[in-house]
């Protein structure tokens, strides 16, 4: 298949292919981070995770419309404002949902599945009523379009680089927050032993709400970043939810590092196979490998190291 090409051509294609894998990796990390916190740390199966992402995406859409209409001069920076707003809006809705619904279900994990699934349907219909059934696209500022040419043949898409930077910063921030801050210590204490944490004076209800809100907020940022890649419609969240759970479960639900490793593994496998086989076959093979590994290591990649 490669006989007709010169070495430079091949090298540059492989470089770009490597980049494609990395940018899929950063998409997976962004999707899975919020869920890893909510599902991994709190044990809540949040079926509405995709809808929280879409909330962030719609926030981004509205913000960019607002800037275009009222402050076209500042449009270039609108994306950063949009991401902060997306975080705040999704986190606020997350906190509300936790207060109104999820906190009553902590002892019934399977019921959260149904309840959040219902929530996802409600949110989808709400988006449809507010924004219409038609998908919307966000206009990107000029500097985010186009490609960054390393050589004549190697071109790295700027929005791909940008998504990658956001993913890495969020992963880093979550790591610092969970493992290097006092608040993170409280969260982990609540996860490991709730009555004990309460006994030493941790406000577990407050920690729960903040954790859930944080997870939802990160989902919002992810949704905001995805407006650079795809379009936003009432049901777009559904496209992400399966991959998201796949990454989190495969990585081992309790482990953030596991989530990142699994995101890396799945994205590289998929994009390499997409290159050598066809798109649908790549997906099938990836899923088969994941199923196979989960049969051997039912707790996911990283969780087996934890002694119970």
């Amino acid at each position, binding site marked *: 298949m490669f006989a007709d090409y010169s070495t430079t051509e091949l090298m540059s294609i492989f470089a770009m*292919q490597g980049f494609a894998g990395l940018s899929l990796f950063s998409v997976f990390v962004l999707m899975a981070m919020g869920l890893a916190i909510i599902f991994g740390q709190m044990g809540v199966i949040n079926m509405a995770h995709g809808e929280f992402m879409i909330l962030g995406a719609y926030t981004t859409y509205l913000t960019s419309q607002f800037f275009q209409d009222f402050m076209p001069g500042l449009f270039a920076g609108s994306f950063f404002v949009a991401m902060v707003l997306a975080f705040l809006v999704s986190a606020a809705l997350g906190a509300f949902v936790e207060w109104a619904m999820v906190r009553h279900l902590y002892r019934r994990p399977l019921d959260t599945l149904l309840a959040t699934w219902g929530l996802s349907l409600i949110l989808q219909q709400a988006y449809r009523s507010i924004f219409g059934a038609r998908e919307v696209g966000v206009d990107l500022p000029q500097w985010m379009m186009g*490609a960054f040419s390393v050589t004549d043949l190697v071109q790295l898409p700027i929005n791909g680089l940008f998504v990658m930077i956001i993913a890495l910063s969020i992963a880093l921030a979550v790591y610092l927050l969970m493992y290097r801050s006092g608040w993170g210590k409280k969260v982990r204490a609540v996860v490991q032993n709730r009555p004990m944490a309460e006994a030493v004076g941790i406000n577990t209800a407050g920690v729960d709400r903040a954790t859930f809100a944080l997870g939802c907020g990160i989902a919002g940022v992810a949704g905001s970043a995805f407006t650079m890649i795809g*379009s936003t419609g009432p049901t777009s969240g559904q496209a992400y939810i399966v991959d998201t759970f796949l990454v989190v479960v495969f990585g081992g639900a309790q482990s953030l590092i596991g989530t990142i490793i699994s995101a890396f593994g799945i994205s590289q496998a998929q994009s390499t196979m997409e290159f050598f086989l066809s798109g649908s076959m790549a997906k099938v093979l990836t899923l088969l490998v994941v199923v196979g590994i989960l049969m051997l290591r039912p707790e996911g990649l990283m969780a087996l190291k934890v002694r119970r």
Partner: protein
Amino acid sequence: MKTPKHSLPSRPRRRLLAGLLALPAVLALSTPSFAAPPTSEVNTSGLAVTEDTVKVGILHSITGTMAISEIGSVQAEKLAIEQINASGGVLGRQIEFVQEDGASDWPTFAEKARKLLRQDDVAAIFGCWTSASRKAVLPVIEQFNGMLYYPTFYEGLEQSPNVIYTGQEATQQILAGIDWAVKEKGAKTFYLLGSDYIWPRTSNKIARIHIEKKGLKVVGEEYYPLGHTQFNSVINKIKLRKPDVIFASVVGGSNVAFYKQMKAAGIDLTEESPLLLTISVTEDEIRGIGGENVEGVYASMKYFQSLDNANNKEFVAAFKERWGDDMVIGDVTQAAYLGPWLWKAAVEKAGSFDIDKVREASPGIEFKKAPEGYVRIHENHHLWSKTRIGVAQTDGQYKVVHETKDLMEPDPFPEGYK
């Protein structure tokens, strides 16, 4: 609807739009009680026809994922029905419609079709969009002998006595598109890319046979799951294989990701190397993708909103007047508009609403006021129509660059495809 009956003769309406605006007055004027043949003559099979009304069904998804695509068709069909009513109705009877929601769910389509035929006794159904919904409705409509007017361009390989296909079957769209790319653009190599379901796969199979028959080469053929958003790998493959033409049948939300990533990867489609020819992006889809992302994309369709003829100008104006200025009209929306008019013509030729007589009268029915110009129903229940190539502009409209000289003959069962 109760309107006072005057025994004034009806006047011919030259301008439908004006007629529409004056709807109530027109209804009163142009419902001549003496002209309509008695119900016992025009309805011998128990349809919902009275002395001054006839009932039809509209069956599309107005909720669920397909709503985004199907709403345009609903609007077009309602507009056509209103215009027909304003110009005197069908056999002197005003059309009343019963609208049902297929809810993007194929069994629901079948159930609603059954309801329309058995409970409402409709004389015709205008509806369905995806092939899956049509396939679900087909057994029902054949069992209870109904008549379905189906608007979407589709993969062909079907010919039901109970369906009139007002969109193109696959060969009408594909052959003309490829011939144009070969003749005008000197294309020699093709890369076929589509979403993974029956329509793109069948379309690409037809395309491949046609390309190879010409002694040209297909350098790649790929399918991605519906809703897929990561096209970087295939874009790299395209860069490596350097095809002259990317022949794309990607549908739905995936389109946005695909065109944005093409642009981000440094492929400027306006440079036409490679040239991108799509059969799945209408003006409707561009609204979601963004005009700046598809500038320079060529599409092979039978209708573009920008078509420059008197029929189309009138249609676009009426459509916007009725549904709002920010509306865009894609290929399927126009095909949906043809349905009620073709039905009316067939009923009037048959002199009856009876399904069997309408079916017999259908082949050869022509519609000279079609926005796309002129169409005629073929023996095989598909339409003779022209194919056009348009190039997408940043404002989301297509500029027509080519039009087949003659009407393309519909060929739902092409040679070599099994």
